[in-house]
C-alpha cells in the first residue's frame, strides 16, 4: 500500500522528497558535529592549558553544547534602531547558507555523494566565495561604525586568502586531471604514498593555513578576537549571533573534509592491507577530518594572533607566489613523463 501511495506522486516530486531526505541525513550529523566541535574545542584547549574545561552539564559534560544552544535560543534577538532590519536578519542566513550548501557535492566515500556533479571543485569554490556576503551585509546593515570597520577588515582578509586557496586547488585538479571530487579521491587509491600530500606538500600547507584564515580562526581571528577586537557581529545577539558561529564551525569541518579528500587520500586507508581495510571508507574519512580539526584547535591554543598587516603580507606575498611556483612545478612534472607517474 505504501508503494502505491509513493507511486501516486509525480516523478519530479519523488526526486524532491528523496533529495530532501538525503539533505537531512547530511545536515543533521553536520549540525551535531558542529555542536560537539565546540565542546571538543573547549575541552582540548582546556587540557592544553592545564585545566579541565567545562565539566558541569551531564555526564562528563556531554550535554554542554545542548545547553549552550538552548541558552542562545532563549535569548532575545536585538535589532538596533536605524538598522536595515531585513538585511540585518538576512546576513546570518547568508553566512550559513553557503557553508551548508557546499556539502551537497562532498563525496563521503566512493559511492556516498548527494550530487556527483562534474565540476564539484568549482562549485565548492564558488559557494565558499559567497560566505563573505554574510559578513559584509552584517557589518553594513547594523548601521554602526565598529561592525562596519570589522566587516571591511574580515572581508578583505577572506578575499585575499580565497585567491591562495583557489590556486592550491588548481594544483590538485592538475594532478588529478579532474574537477570532480570523487575522481580526485579515486585518483589517490592505494597506500599512503599515493596520497597527494607528498607531491603537493606546499599546496597542502598553503591550502590548510588559508582555510584557517578563511574561516577567521586563530591565529587569523582579527574578525572576532572575542576578548578585545570589535568584530562585524558586534550588534548581534542570541540565535542571530550563534548563526555566525554555526557557519564558522561548519566551514571548519568543510575545510578539514576538503583537505582530507584532496590531499590525504579521501576515504582510502593508509595501507591497503587487511586490518586497515576492515574499517569502511566513511570511517577513514572521519578519522582524517578529526585529525585536521584537531590541528585547527591546536593552532588556536598555541599561536599568538597575527597582526593585520602580517596577515595581508602572508596571503599576498608568500602564499600566492608559493602556489604559482608549485603549479609550474606540477606542470613540468606532468610534461616530463618520467615524473608524471607521481600523478597517476
Amino acid at each position, binding site marked *: 500500500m505504501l508503494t502505491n501511495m509513493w507511486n501516486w506522486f509525480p516523478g519530479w516530486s519523488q526526486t524532491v522528497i528523496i533529495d530532501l531526505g538525503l539533505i537531512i541525513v547530511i545536515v543533521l550529523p553536520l549540525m551535531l558535529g558542529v555542536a560537539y566541535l565546540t565542546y571538543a574545542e573547549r575541552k582540548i584547549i582546556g587540557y592544553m592549558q592545564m585545566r579541565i574545561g567545562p565539566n558541569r552539564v551531564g555526564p562528563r559534560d556531554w550535554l554542554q553544547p545542548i545547553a549552550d544552544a538552548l541558552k542562545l535560543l532563549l535569548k532575545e534577538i536585538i535589532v538596533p534602531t536605524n538598522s536595515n532590519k531585513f538585511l540585518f536578519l538576512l546576513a546570518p542566513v547568508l553566512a550559513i547558507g553557503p557553508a551548508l550548501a557546499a556539502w551537497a557535492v562532498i563525496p563521503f566515500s566512493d559511492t556516498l555523494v548527494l550530487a556527483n556533479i562534474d565540476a564539484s571543485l568549482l562549485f565548492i569554490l*564558488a559557494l565558499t566565495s559567497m560566505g563573505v556576503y554574510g559578513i559584509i551585509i552584517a557589518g553594513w546593515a547594523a548601521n554602526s561604525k565598529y561592525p562596519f570597520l570589522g566587516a571591511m577588515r574580515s572581508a578583505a582578509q577572506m578575499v585575499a586568502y580565497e585567491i591562495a586557496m583557489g590556486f592550491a586547488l588548481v594544483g590538485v585538479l592538475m594532478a588529478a586531471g579532474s574537477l570532480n571530487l570523487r575522481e580526485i579521491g579515486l585518483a589517490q587509491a592505494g597506500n599512503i604514498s599515493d596520497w597527494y600530500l607528498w607531491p603537493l606538500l606546499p599546496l597542502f600547507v598553503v591550502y590548510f593555513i588559508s582555510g584557517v584564515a578563511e574561516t577567521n580562526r586563530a591565529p587569523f581571528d582579527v574578525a572576532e578576537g572575542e576578548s578585545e577586537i570589535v568584530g562585524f557581529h558586534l550588534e548581534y545577539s542570541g540565535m542571530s549571533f550563534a548563526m555566525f558561529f554555526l557557519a564558522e564551525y561548519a566551514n571548519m569541518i568543510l575545510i578539514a573534509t576538503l583537505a582530507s579528500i584532496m590531499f590525504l587520500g579521501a576515504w582510502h586507508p593508509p595501507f591497503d592491507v587487511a586490518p586497515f581495510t576492515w574499517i569502511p571508507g566513511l570511517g577513514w574519512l572521519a578519522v582524517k577530518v578529526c585529525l585536521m580539526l584537531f590541528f585547527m584547535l591546536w593552532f588556536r591554543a598555541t599561536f599568538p594572533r597575527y597582526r593585520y598587516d602580517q596577515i595581508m603580507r602572508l596571503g599576498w606575498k608568500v602564499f600566492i607566489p608559493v602556489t604559482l611556483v608549485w603549479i609550474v612545478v606540477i606542470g613540468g612534472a606532468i610534461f616530463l613523463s618520467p615524473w608524471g607517474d607521481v600523478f597517476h
Partner: protein
Amino acid sequence: MGFEQILFYFFAGVLLFAATMVITIRNPVKSALFLVLAFFNAAALWILLEAEFLAIVLVLVYVGAVMVLFLFVVMMLDINLVKLREGFGEYLPYGGLVAVLLVIELVVVLNSPQFGLGEMPDPVGQAADYSNTRELGRLLYTTYVYPFEIAALLLLVAIIAAITLTMRKRKDTRYQNPAQQMSVQAKDRLRVVKMPAERKG
C-alpha cells in the same frame, strides 16, 4: 508544465525582478545586492541550459569577487540621494533616445532571417557524464589558444596599469621590513642595566 519549466519561470521571474530593482531602488548598496541576486539567478538559468561550467564561473567571478569589491566601494562612498535625483528630467531625452535605439536594434536582430529560431539547430542534450569543463578547456587550449593567450596578456597589462595608476610613493609612509623584524634579537631591544642598591636596609 514540467518541473524544469517551473524552475525556469521561477528563476527568470526573480532575475527580471532583481534586474528591475537594480535600476529603480534608491539605495546604491541595496541596488548592488539586487545585482548579486540577478547574477545568481542568471547562473541558475545557465545550469538549466547544461552550461554548468559557465554558471559556476559566473558565481565565482562576478558574485564572489567583482561584486564584493563593488560593495566595498559603494558602502564606503557617502552618496547623497537627493543629489542623485536631481536632473532626472534633464537627462530623460538622452536616456529615452538610447532606450528606443536599443529596442529597435533588438527587434531588428530578433526578426532578421539570420537569427531566427529556425536558423539555429536545436541544442542536443548531452549524456550525464559529458564534461562541459573538459570540452571548453580542450577548445580554449587548442583551437582558440592564440586568442586566449592574447586575452590573458591584455588582462595582465590591465592589472599592471591599474597597479601603476594607484601606486603613489609617499615620502612619509612608514612600513616594517618583516625580514628585519624576524632577525631581531633580545639584545637589540633590551638593555639590562646593573644598578647598585641605593640604600642599605
